[in-house]
């Protein structure tokens, strides 16, 4: 293992390679909805610099992380090869330090003595509208805020902190992306990222209930908007449309342990795109969750399989919206605990068709302290699990390439390039261990990784962890149902073998086969349509 991944690090330097990846600008109808008040259109050039500098000055005074990380980088380059966008594009402005310098050089020129005195000798450069539009707007939207760089930096410098600040400065002059602002405005309107209205949300839950019933014979409820409940569950809304197996797996777990749970259409989304946009919006989106939890008297809020949702909760919720009158956890922690307590009846062999590896979502691993639970669950529900190269998992996990608000069509090429290290690590275990299932407990991963795997021609299925749990989990009454189904099917098969009657002329035959031949010859009914004439004898 590791050789292919090692090759990924031999990057040829291609300055300017990232110039062409530019996200669409926001529109007034989205910009005006943001909690972080911003101009709805880019400011005229002659106002931009002043407003931006004022905002930067404010931010560095409000955030120790920003101030410190602007000051102490020694440009040693230890972080250079840790960014998947650099490994993919070769553009030095996509190295963590190169990206940070875009902001630092402005900071030095305007806010430090050495920068004012010595200018470019100490790497200082005055801010211009071009720097904002051509450098910041492009390259701060080529960072997925994955924080991988910070693991390797001798001082723990976290480029995501600089990206987040850079984006807030950009907001202040009216430069924001359409994708992120549209998603956030949908949350404010419908309670979820996809903009699913209440009726459709409920209809989908009912549909999934029927689906589970059909498969297991058990009435598993997927409750929405219950007035009181112990547990408030927040799925990534994509789980109700595209990743339905994850949603059904979660519902089955809740059913199996007899939990009193509900989802809410006011806050029907775990994800928090505020992280990619502004502190104000992180707080406003979290607030919806807190309000609902209070209203229904939830004692426990559980976040679904979504990486940055977990970061927004784990690191920001208490600090921004606290004190919280409830406890909160991730569904991975919940299910792992239920397994430990022996509350779930699991049949691992039902997952014998898959050989699983796990992609750690950046925000779960590095920002959420959640690396063991996922593995524990997978090993409890599957017989075949193998980890990727140690340099590509857990706190060193590589981003899928679509995080940080970059999951948008117009920069698809960048997304594929950013997916290169992850894809390569997967490819290694596909080759060495025949892995065919990539477990990725995150909605962004589930949207991005299938495209990446296709792009690099790696034959794996991408799915959630609860998809596997759902398959292995045996509900009460399910086995009886399955036995019944099996008996029925067997009876049908047996009947098909036994004596049969031709419905058109009442002739009797020893087998179905003979009857069909008769029907073809006598009644001109082809064998494929034999059931129009023949049926088993009662």
């Amino acid at each position, binding site marked *: 293992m590791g050789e292919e991944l090692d090759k990924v690090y031999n990057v040829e330097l291609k300055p300017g390679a990232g110039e062409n990846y530019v996200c669409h600008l926001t529109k007034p109808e989205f910009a005006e909805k943001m909690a972080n008040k911003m101009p709805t259109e880019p400011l005229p050039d002659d106002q931009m610099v002043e407003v931006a500098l004022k905002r930067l000055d404010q931010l560095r005074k409000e*955030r*120790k992380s920003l101030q410190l990380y602007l000051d102490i980088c020694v*440009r040693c380059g230890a972080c250079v090869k840790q960014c998947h966008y650099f490994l993919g594009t070769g553009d030095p402005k996509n190295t963590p330090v190169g990206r940070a310098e875009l902001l630092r050089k402005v900071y030095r020129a305007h806010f430090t003595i*050495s920068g004012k005195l010595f200018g470019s000798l100490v*790497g200082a450069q005055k801010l211009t509208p071009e720097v904002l539009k051509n450098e910041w707007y492009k390259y701060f939207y080529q960072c997925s805020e994955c924080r991988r760089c910070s693991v390797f930096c001798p001082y723990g410098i976290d480029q995501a902190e600089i990206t987040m600040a850079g984006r807030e400065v950009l907001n202040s002059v009216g430069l924001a992306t359409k994708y992120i602002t549209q998603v956030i405005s949908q949350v404010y309107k419908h309670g979820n990222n996809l903009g699913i209205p209440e009726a459709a949300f409920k209809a989908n839950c009912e549909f999934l209930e029927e689906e589970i019933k059909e498969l297991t014979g058990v009435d598993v409820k997927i409750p929405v908007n219950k007035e009181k409940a112990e547990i408030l569950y927040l799925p990534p809304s994509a789980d109700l449309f595209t990743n339905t197996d994850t949603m059904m797996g979660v519902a089955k777990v809740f059913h199996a342990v007899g939990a009193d749970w509900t989802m809410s259409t006011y806050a029907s989304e775990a994800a928090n795109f505020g992280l990619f946009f502004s502190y104000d919006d992180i707080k406003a989106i979290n607030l919806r969750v807190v309000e609902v939890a209070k209203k229904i008297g939830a004692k426990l809020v559980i976040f679904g399989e979504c990486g940055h949702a977990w970061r927004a909760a784990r690191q920001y919720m208490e600090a921004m919206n606290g004190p919280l009158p409830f406890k909160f956890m991730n569904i991975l922690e919940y299910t792992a605990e239920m397994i430990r307590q022996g509350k779930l009846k699991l049949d691992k062999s039902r997952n014998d068709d898959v050989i699983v590896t796990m992609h750690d979502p950046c925000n779960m691993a590095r920002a959420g302290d959640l690396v063991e639970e996922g593995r524990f669950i997978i090993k409890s529900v599957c017989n075949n699990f193998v980890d990727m190269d140690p340099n590509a998992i857990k706190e060193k996990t590589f981003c899928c390439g679509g995080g940080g608000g970059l999951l948008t069509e117009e920069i698809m090429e960048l997304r594929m390039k950013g997916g290169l290290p992850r894809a390569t690590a997967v490819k290694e275990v596909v080759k060495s261990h025949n892995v065919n299932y990539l477990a990725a407990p995150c909605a962004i991963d589930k949207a991005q990784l299938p495209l990446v795997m296709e792009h690099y021609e790696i034959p794996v299925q991408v799915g959630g962890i609860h998809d596997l749990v759902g398959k292995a989990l045996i509900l009460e009454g399910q086995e009886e149902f399955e036995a019944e189904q099996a008996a029925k099917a067997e009876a049908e098969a047996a009947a098909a073998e036994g004596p049969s009657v031709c419905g058109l002329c009442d002739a009797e035959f020893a087998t179905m086969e003979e009857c069909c031949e008769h029907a073809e010859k006598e009644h001109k009914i082809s064998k494929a349509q034999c059931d129009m004439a023949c049926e088993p004898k009662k």
Partner: protein
Amino acid sequence: MGVLANFVVNVLPYITFIVFVVGVIYRIAVWWSRPSPIPIAVFPGQRSVGSAIVRVLSDVIFFRSLLQFKGNQILWLGAWLFHISFGLILLRHLRYFLGAEAVPGWVAAVQGIGIAAALVISIPLLYLLLRRIVHADIKWISTPADYFVLLLILSVVLSGLYAKYFARPFVVDVKYVIRSLMALKPVDLSTVTLNTAFLVHFFLVQVLAMYIPFSKVMHFGGIFFSPTRTHHFGGEAHTKQLEEA
């Protein structure tokens, strides 16, 4: 050389001292005072104050983070050798500052290894310089200031070695100069034998000291404030919460 020497020995050191001390305290005070309300620890690693301290110290002493990636191992070696040598050289210089007559025993004890460090330090320094020229990506991210500080330290080292092995000023006289400065007493230059090599070395050291507060070298203080390392955000508390729930 009278006026210039007088300036370097009798005037500049006080300016250097004030710039260095005030500058360093100011920079640290800024970091200290900045609020940091959001716990942004980079997991996994620290789940309590204790483990956060361990993590920071392992970065300070062993440069642990540089060991997280194979490709950074040579950098680790170079950087670590450079810093440890730098530290030992500083310790060795204490003999000029401490003890009116004889130096304390432990200062005497580090003399040998201090000299070894002085002989060795040029190697990692040259490596750190070379990698900024040889590797295209490191070259791209380097600014003139990055070369400047390495060259400055290199010239401090070389002028010091030259003074020690070739120009050979009287150790007693050097100590007398330093002790006088510490006592805020002017040095009468006519009573001591100081040569140009020593004066150059002494001057460059002061330039370095004055440069530090304005530069990236302040990382030595900043590392203790880095929120991704110092925050711990009670992983233990979270786990306990879950057990209750």
